C-alpha cells in the first residue's frame, strides 16, 4: 500500500459569489420575495368560519386532526386530497424537470431561497466577493469579529423567524405568538423552533451548496429525468472556444482556420436574422490565432453560488440558477458580442464542434445532431424556446397533472354536506329477540363539519317494514356537536315473519336527514336474517 495515499476526505472550498444583476437575478429576487412572503404571511391570514371554528385561513390542527385551507376543510378520512396534491407535486416536478431541467433547484427550493437570502445579508455586511475573500484570509481582528458577529446575528434573526413562522401553521398564530413570548407555549413549539432555527442557520449560512451536493437526493433524480431536448443552463463552447484574453479587434470570419470558426460564422448569420446588432466576426489573439467569444474573464465562475465553472459542461453541482447567464450577458454586451454565450439551451439543439471541444459538453456527443450538422440547415439557429417547452413528454405530464387536479376539484365539489359511514356489526351478524324478531346492529359515524350542532334523523325506506332504533335514545334523532364526529349504535329490527328476517341477506338503505335544513343522504348496507332453509337443513341432519 502506498504511503502517500490520496486524501479520502476533502475540506469544503469556501465560495464567495460575486454580486450580479440581470434578467435572471431580477426573476430570482421576485421569486424570493414571493415565496418568503407566502411563507411568513400565510399563518396570519384570517378567514371567518363562524363561532365554533378557528378563524385562521391556513391551519394544520394536529390535535383535532383538521386541516383548514381557506374555505376548504379536510378531515382525516379525506386524506386522499392530500395524497392527490402530493401526486400533483410529483408530476409537476416531472413536468418542470423535463422542460426546464433543475428549475426547481435554481429558483424555488427553500435551500436555494434561504441561502440566497443569507448571501445577500453576507454581502451587505461584509462586502462583495473581493472584500469577503480578503476578510476570509485576514487574521481575527476586532473588525473581523465585528463583521462576523453582526452577520451571524442577522442570520440568527432570520433563522428564528423561519422556525417561528413554521409553528404558526399548527396553532392559532396570534395566540401562539403571545404564548411564545410569555413562555407559556407548549415545549414542542419551542423545540420545533429550536431545531428549525438551527437547521436554517447552519444550512443557509455554512452548508449551502454542500446540502445540494451531498445531502439532497434531487440532483440525482432530476438528472435522470432530463433528456437532450430539455432546456438547461449551458455554455456554447462551439462559440466560445478557444477562449482567451485576445485583442478585441474584430475581423471577418476566418472560416476553417479553427474548428469552431465555421460555426461561429453560421451563428453570426443566425444573429443577422434576429438581432439588429450584427457583429459577425471573430476576435483575434495578439499571436494572430483566431479566438472564440469567451474572453476567459471568469465572471461566470465568480458569481456561481455552487463554485463551479459552467464552461466545463453540465455538472451534478449545477442548480441552474442562471446567474452565470446574467454575468456573461453583461460581459458580452461590453465587448460588443451577442448575448447567450452561456444560456438556457437544449443539448440536441447545438451545432457540432470539433471533437476536442465537444467532449467538454457531457451528453452532446450522444445527441442526435446529424440533421443539424448536415447541409440541410446551412445557417444554424436554435429552435424557438416553446418547441422545447411544449413537447409530447411535457404535454403528457401537463395533461396528467391537470387531470388529477380536475378530479380533486370535482371530488371537492361533490363532497356531501352530510357525511356518514355505516359499519354493520358482524359479531354476531344478527340477534334473535324473545318474540322471534331479528335484530341487526350498525355503527353509524356521523360527521358534522359545521360550526354549530346539528340534529340528524335516521330512518329507513318507508316500505321496508323494518323498525329502526338508537341505542340509549327513545327517538331516532341523533345530535352531533359542532365540528365533531359521533358514533351512533343503530338497531334495525325485522319481525319474525318479515321476509328480511327469513332470508340470509337483504339490501338495506339507511337515510340520514338534517332536521334543520332537510338535507338528506343515504347509505346502503346489508341486513342479515336467519337463513330459514339453512336452519331447517341443520335440524333435519
Amino acid at each position, binding site marked *: 500500500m502506498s504511503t502517500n495515499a490520496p486524501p479520502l476526505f476533502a475540506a469544503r472550498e469556501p465560495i464567495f459569489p460575486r454580486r450580479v444583476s440581470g434578467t435572471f437575478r431580477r426573476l430570482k429576487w421576485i421569486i424570493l420575495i414571493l415565496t418568503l412572503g407566502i411563507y411568513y404571511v400565510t399563518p396570519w391570514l384570517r378567514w371567518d368560519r363562524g363561532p365554533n371554528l378557528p378563524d385562521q385561513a391556513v391551519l394544520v390542527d394536529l390535535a383535532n386532526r383538521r386541516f383548514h385551507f381557506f374555505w376548504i376543510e379536510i378531515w382525516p378520512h379525506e386524506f386522499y386530497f392530500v395524497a392527490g396534491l402530493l401526486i400533483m407535486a410529483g408530476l409537476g416536478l416531472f413536468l418542470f424537470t423535463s422542460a426546464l431541467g433543475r428549475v426547481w433547484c435554481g429558483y424555488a427550493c427553500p435551500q436555494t431561497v434561504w441561502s440566497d437570502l443569507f448571501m445577500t445579508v453576507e454581502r451587505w455586511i461584509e462586502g462583495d466577493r473581493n472584500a469577503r475573500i480578503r476578510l476570509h484570509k485576514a487574521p481575527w481582528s476586532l473588525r473581523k469579529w465585528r463583521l462576523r458577529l453582526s452577520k451571524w446575528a442577522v442570520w440568527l434573526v432570520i433563522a428564528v423567524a423561519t422556525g417561528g413562522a413554521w409553528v404558526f401553521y399548527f396553532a392559532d398564530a396570534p395566540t401562539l405568538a403571545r404564548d411564545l413570548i410569555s413562555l407559556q407555549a407548549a415545549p414542542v413549539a419551542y423545540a420545533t423552533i429550536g431545531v428549525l432555527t438551527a437547521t436554517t442557520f447552519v444550512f443557509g449560512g455554512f452548508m449551502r451548496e454542500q446540502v445540494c451536493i451531498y445531502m439532497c437526493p434531487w440532483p440525482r433524480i432530476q438528472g435522470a429525468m432530463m433528456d437532450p431536448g430539455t432546456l438547461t443552463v449551458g455554455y456554447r463552447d462551439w462559440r466560445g472556444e478557444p477562449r482567451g484574453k485576445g485583442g478585441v479587434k474584430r475581423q471577418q470570419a476566418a472560416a476553417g482556420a479553427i474548428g469552431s470558426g465555421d460555426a461561429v460564422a453560421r451563428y453570426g448569420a443566425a444573429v443577422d436574422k434576429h438581432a439588429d446588432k450584427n457583429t459577425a466576426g471573430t476576435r483575434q489573439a495578439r499571436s494572430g490565432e483566431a479566438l472564440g467569444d469567451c474572453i476567459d474573464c471568469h465572471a461566470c465562475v465568480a458569481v456561481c453560488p455552487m463554485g463551479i465553472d459552467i464552461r466545463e459542461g453540465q455538472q451534478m453541482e449545477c442548480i441552474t440558477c442562471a446567474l452565470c447567464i446574467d454575468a456573461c450577458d453583461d460581459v458580452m454586451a461590453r465587448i460588443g458580442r451577442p448575448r447567450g454565450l452561456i444560456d438556457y439551451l437544449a443539448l440536441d439543439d447545438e451545432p457540432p464542434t470539433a471533437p476536442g471541444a465537444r467532449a467538454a459538453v457531457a451528453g452532446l456527443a450522444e445527441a442526435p445532431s446529424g440533421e443539424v450538422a448536415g447541409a440541410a440547415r446551412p445557417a444554424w439557429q436554435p429552435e424557438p424556446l416553446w418547441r422545447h417547452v411544449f413537447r409530447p413528454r411535457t404535454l403528457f405530464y401537463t395533461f396528467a397533472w391537470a387531470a388529477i387536479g380536475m378530479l380533486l376539484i370535482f371530488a371537492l365539489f361533490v363532497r356531501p354536506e352530510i357525511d356518514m359511514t355505516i359499519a354493520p356489526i358482524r359479531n354476531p351478524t344478527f340477534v334473535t329477540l324473545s318474540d322471534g324478531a331479528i335484530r341487526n346492529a350498525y355503527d353509524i359515524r356521523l360527521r358534522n363539519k359545521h360550526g354549530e350542532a346539528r340534529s340528524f334523523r335516521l330512518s329507513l325506506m318507508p316500505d321496508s317494514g323494518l323498525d329502526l332504533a338508537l341505542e340509549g335514545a327513545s327517538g331516532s334523532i341523533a345530535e352531533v356537536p359542532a365540528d365533531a364526529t359521533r358514533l351512533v349504535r343503530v*338497531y334495525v329490527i325485522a319481525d319474525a315473519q318479515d321476509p328480511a328476517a327469513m332470508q340470509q341477506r337483504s339490501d338495506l338503505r339507511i337515510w340520514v336527514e338534517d332536521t334543520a335544513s332537510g338535507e338528506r343522504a343515504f347509505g346502503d348496507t346489508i341486513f342479515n336474517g336467519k337463513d330459514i332453509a339453512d336452519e331447517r337443513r341443520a335440524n333435519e341432519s
Partner: protein
Amino acid sequence: MTDDRKIDPTTGTETTGHSWDGIEELNTPLPRWWLWTFYATIVWGVIYTILFPAWPMVSGATAGLLGYSTRGEVAAEIERVALSNAELESSLTTVDLAVLRDNEALHRYAVQAGRSVFAANCSQCHGAGAGGVVASGYPNLLDDDWLWGGTIDDIAYTVRHGIRNEEDPDTRFSEMPPFDWMEQSEREATAHFVRSLSDLDHDPAAAGEGAELFADNCSSCHGENGLGDRTLGAPNLADAIWLRGSSQEAILSQLATPRMGVMPSWQTRLGEADVRAVAAYVHGLGGGEATPEDTAPSAQADDPAQ
C-alpha cells in the same frame, strides 16, 4: 508526496491508487464535515449506550445511568391515566346506576372502561361480541331475554356475585331437579307441551297430557304459562330464545339431566368500579332494561359495603 498519485486520463480525476485486475477506482473525496458527522454519531452512540439500557449481559442487559425502561414508561403512563380518571372512577362506584345515563361523561367513561373489562374477563365465555355460545350454553347478552334480570342493577349484581358460585354466599342460585323419575312417555308429553308454548311443531294430544304434568312439576318455577321467574333464574319457555336448544331431543335431555350455567363472582377480582363499568357496557348492548320507576333504587341496589 504527489509522486504516487495517479490521474485517470479519461476523466482527469485522481485515482485512489488501488488496482484490481487493472480496474482502478476514482478518488472522489467525501466532504470532511461528513467524517465529523460520522464521528459525532459514534460519540452519540457510546453516550447513548451508557445512559440507556443497551449491552446484553448474561442475564438481562445493562440498565443505563438514567434508569430508563419502556416498562417503566408504560407504568408511568398507566398511572397518569389512572390519576386523570380517578375522579370519574370514584364517582362511578357511588353513582345510582339507574340514572347513570343522565351523566353523559360518566356513562361514556363507564361504557369505555366496561368494554375493556368485558374483553379481558367476559369474552372467553360470552364471546367478543357478547353473542354467547349457544352450543355451550353461554347466554347471549345482546338480546332482550334475561334469566336473572336485565336492569343495570340486576346485571351489576350478577357480575358481582356470579351464578351458582360456591364461594359467594350472595350468589344467584337455583337448581332444576332431574326429572329422571318420570316415565319416558311423560317426559315426551311434557316436552310437547313446552314446545307448544312457543308455537313450535308438536303433537297436540301429547301436549294436552303434558300440560297437566307441567302444571304439577314445572310451573312452580317456570310459571303457569311457562313465562319463567327471574328471581329463580328460571327461563321463559314461551319465547323464541332457547339457551339449551328448542328441539324435542334437547328439551328431553334437559328434563332428564338438567344443565345449569355457572358464573364466577367478580367483585373481588374486578372491584366495584369495574363491576359497574362492565354492567353499564353490557346494559348498553341492546338488551338492557330500564329500571322500573316504582322501584326505589336503594331497595334494588346491592350495597357493596355489605
